[in-house]
């Protein structure tokens, strides 16, 4: 899972829905724990601005 930092508005939506507890946040950015991320794609569906890409 990759976040386009330019598009991202730090709304915390992705972090709130991640079923694998792979995301943490500061008030300025979302931090991805790539060990936990399964690339399931759930977070992409909530992103209001299309900032998330899922690697395949």
């Amino acid at each position: 899972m990759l976040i386009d930092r330019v598009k991202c508005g730090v709304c915390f939506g992705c972090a709130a829905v991640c079923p694998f507890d792979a995301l943490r946040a500061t008030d300025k950015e979302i931090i991805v724990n790539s060990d936990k991320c399964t690339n399931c794609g759930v977070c992409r569906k909530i992103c209001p601005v299309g900032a998330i890409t899922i690697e395949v």
Partner: protein
Amino acid sequence: MKFKVDVAIVGGGPAGSSTALTAAKLGLNVLLIDRKAHIGVPVQCGEAVGKTGPSIAEIDIPKEAIRNPIRGFRIYSPSNITVDYAKPQPDGYIVDRRVFDKELFIKAAEAGAETLINTDIKELVFKDGKVSGLIGVNDNGRVEVESKIVIGADGVFSIIAKLAGLRKYAKLSDLDASVGYEMCNVEYDDPELMEFYMGRNIAPRGYVWIFPKGEKRANVGIGVGAQDGTRTALDYMKTFMKEHPIGREKLKNAKIVEYRVGAIPLGGPNEKNILDNLMLVGDAAGQVHPITGGGIGYALVCGSIAGKVAAEAIEAGDTSERMLLNYERRWREKYGEEFEKMLKLRELLEKAEDKTLDQLAEILNGQNIVDLTAGRKISILFSAVKKHNKELLNLLNGFRQLKLIQ
């Protein structure tokens, strides 16, 4: 940095500041923590207060934050049938959240709460299996807080709720994705009416709002349900501005002066919001109206309940879950049933086709909508509903099952 306090509050939004203000006034030793350097910024909100949940008589709105009085609303159905509600006197406000949140934060500080901004809380500390404090970081390094009670008022993605095990993760259907703008040169119908635009192609599972801030300025935004990943909230917003027959005209000269992205929690409250020595308040607890997405009023009222219960618990020398149950009981007594009903009502409305929503708009008046979204019964002339209109009848029967029709 080390602190030892009665109550440590994570989050200086409306929920945290309200809790802090109440607890400090009652003489507790309070620490109010936020990771932001500027309380209230960025704004991720429609900034409407008083129209959802607690009335403006029940909450203290900082005068400095009021931008525009609101007397009611106008809803545009998918085919632009309008439903109006307008009171003679204002019963709500559009506020400036930057000023609103900051003023509340200052009031808490003036009442005696210690403040710690720019401080990101990372961990809950447990002692003998019970919450005993927090660990965070700021520009001075590590921050350790020992406290009798921890309050999680840290918003839609609450790390406190997560670490306490009170919320694992939200279902996609429990959040709306949102983008919004502050704009000037907006040609709204009436500066004292909030405008809502509904429809599957306009804002699936949500709505577009235009909230007047006076002098042709407005808070304009959209909330949509989670998508399959092909269209985003931003796409829908842009389409509305370009193509909506009415919205387009109102926004044709509008200029964007601020851009916001947000996630609106609509899934209703967590099953449980307390542990020994811990309470969750506001968005962290899910205290948000599941249809309108309004949460400011609930955050203020529930925060003040939490502050009072914290004072009672500390005075009694008992901050156990059993004691803090008083918080959970009192706030649920006020709003529990309303949230439950509204969750079910939202499900019904989400299933309804545009055509059915248009027909609904034809038979409902503004007062009906106010009553429905407050969980109060309305009376409808079923004879006005054409017999052959099965979808509408089904929807109304759903309302009846929720005891929303007399």
